[in-house]
């Protein structure tokens, strides 16, 4: 075959083994590895969890597990988890957005590249190392606590504690703020200089530009980033476990306890119902996130 013939055959999706069947076969072969792998290691577990959550101890269909989700102590854990996710998202989204804005609008290319790498690293910190870092800094015997004492302020007697709800929000911000910077920066980067200049030549002041163009364009991205932070804080396990050790009732920790064999309501499949409840919440946050991201990317090119 000449080069041209091979090239045109490839373009038509044909192969040496014929056109139509060859193409379907190639599609199947190409997608098979991914679909089989995810099928076994993702969809099967997920399906099992959903299925089992509707099973009673005797193997019969039941909604009891879900009914128990709304009883104490699970209801409290659910409320606390939701509250934590919301608080963390709010506390971290705003500084993150401000930082992202300053870096993108005023930073050099090298700075942006550096921040991107550093933020990526920081967004990945969690668990025991992170807990230790904060205990070392703001724990009862921490360095910062000590510094404050030198200045005459005992933050612990004043009511602060690292081991509370708000302490956890603070610790979470260590990886949430970098996450916000990573996710929100592209939106700001996508604000073209031409729009600002065009607006100016058309008579707009700075605030008019932001009101009519800037904020409307950034708002969806901000919202979707907020949702991501929410989902991230809601699902976090390692850090919560390291920091609280049972003192704060959180859904992921409760599931962990159930898996360790601490039975609450005598239902074997309660943990699975809890897991499904978590999945639902996360889906409610992440699906809008992905949709808004996809739409916003259109004008960010």
């Amino acid at each position, binding site marked *: 075959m000449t080069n041209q013939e091979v090239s045109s055959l490839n373009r038509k999706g044909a192969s040496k083994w014929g056109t139509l069947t060859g193409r379907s076969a190639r599609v199947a072969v190409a997608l098979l590895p991914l679909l089989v792998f995810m099928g076994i290691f993702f969809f099967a577990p997920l399906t099992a969890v959903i299925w089992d959550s509707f099973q009673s101890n005797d193997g019969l269909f039941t909604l009891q597990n879900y009914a128990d989700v709304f009883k104490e102590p699970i209801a409290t854990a659910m409320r606390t988890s939701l509250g934590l996710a919301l608080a963390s998202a709010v506390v971290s989204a705003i500084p993150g957005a401000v930082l992202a804005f300053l870096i993108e609008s005023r930073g050099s290319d090298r700075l942006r590249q550096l921040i991107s790498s550093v933020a990526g690293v920081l967004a990945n910190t969690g668990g025991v190392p992170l807990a230790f870092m904060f205990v070392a800094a703001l724990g009862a015997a921490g360095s910062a606590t000590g510094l404050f004492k030198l200045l005459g302020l005992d933050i612990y007697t004043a009511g602060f504690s690292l081991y509370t709800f708000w302490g956890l929000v603070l610790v979470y911000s260590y990886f949430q703020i970098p996450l916000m910077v990573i996710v929100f920066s592209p939106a700001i980067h996508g604000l*073209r200089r*031409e*729009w600002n*200049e*065009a*607006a*100016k*030549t*058309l*008579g*707009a*002041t700075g605030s*008019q530009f932001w009101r*009519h*163009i800037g904020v*409307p*364009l950034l708002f969806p991205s901000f919202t979707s980033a907020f949702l991501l932070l929410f989902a991230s804080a809601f699902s976090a396990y390692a850090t919560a476990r390291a920091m609280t050790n049972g003192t704060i009732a959180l859904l992921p920790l409760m599931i962990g306890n159930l898996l360790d064999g601490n039975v609450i309501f005598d239902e074997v499949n309660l943990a699975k119902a809890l897991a499904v409840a978590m999945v639902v919440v996360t889906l409610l946050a992440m699906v809008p996130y992905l949709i808004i991201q996809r739409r916003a990317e*259109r*004008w960010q090119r």
Partner: protein
Amino acid sequence: MTSTTLSLRGVSRRFKDTVALDALDLDVSQGELVALLGPSGCGKTTALRIIAGLDNPDAGEVLVGGKSVTHLAPNKRNMGMVFQSYSLFPNLTAAENVAFGLTMRGEAKTVRIGRAQELLEMVGLPKHAKRFPHQLSGGQQQRVALARALAFEPDVLLLDEPLSALDAQVRANLRDEIRALQLKTGTTTIFVTHDQEEAMAMSDRVAVMNAGKIAQIARPDELYHNPASEFVAGFVGQMNKIPATLEADRVRVLDSHVDYRQSWTEQPGAMVALVRPEAIEIQNTAADQSNATVVARAFLGPMSKVSLVLRDGTEVSAVLTSAQSAEFASGSLVRVSVKPDQYLVVAA
């Protein structure tokens, strides 16, 4: 309506170590379209941005209608600007984009809607009012951008290479439309481009720029036939460079002679004649009379380009009607001459 002349007086701008603009002077009459033409880095875009107020000169003044606007913020200058691409606001429809200038000026909604529709019709997009920029083609977007820039009847219209990002066919059409619209509204316009064909076709006058200065500003035909320097001659249209020799008091270019003028070169050393392709004449002759060989013929529609090589290796392009050029076959030996008085002699 306020008188909308535009002037630049001694405008200078430098960036770090480079001089972008060097004491630039420019006067544009009301309703005139002047093109700023030049290679990249010549300062044309810098000049435009300074006129718009998006950049500030280090020295000099910008005057609109005789009044200095040099220190006026861009949003107060009442100038419409069209950028090279992607300048439409993505979250607004075409109509909202067009009406933006009026929105900023606090015009009533009915006025804005009416005017936006009027302008969209003027640029040939009457049914696209509710479309968003990402739903429009490149050419359509630039039309909307033009409508947006004209909606509020600006004193001056500024165009920064508006056609450079478009396909050739779209570019050609839009070029004529822009000129027609500009003539209809009578807006004083500055058009920045690096495409000399565009500049020559559209403008009342063309300012050829180089290294921050205006090398020559004149009507297109004058620029073409009487270029003031070798740079201008080479930049505008095609130019052949044929060696010229000094014989006693006269300079010989191929078959023609002309009196030597001191102003051409410092000493009568090596000289070169700048000749337009249409000023080259070709004749079929016998081998011993010939001074050139035909290399190739390129069919360009009504005209054709004939590429030749002289005995000394100089490459020459001639442009003839296609009928005429048919006489000269590739590889044949011919005699080439220059139409009298249609060349410029400069130092080599």
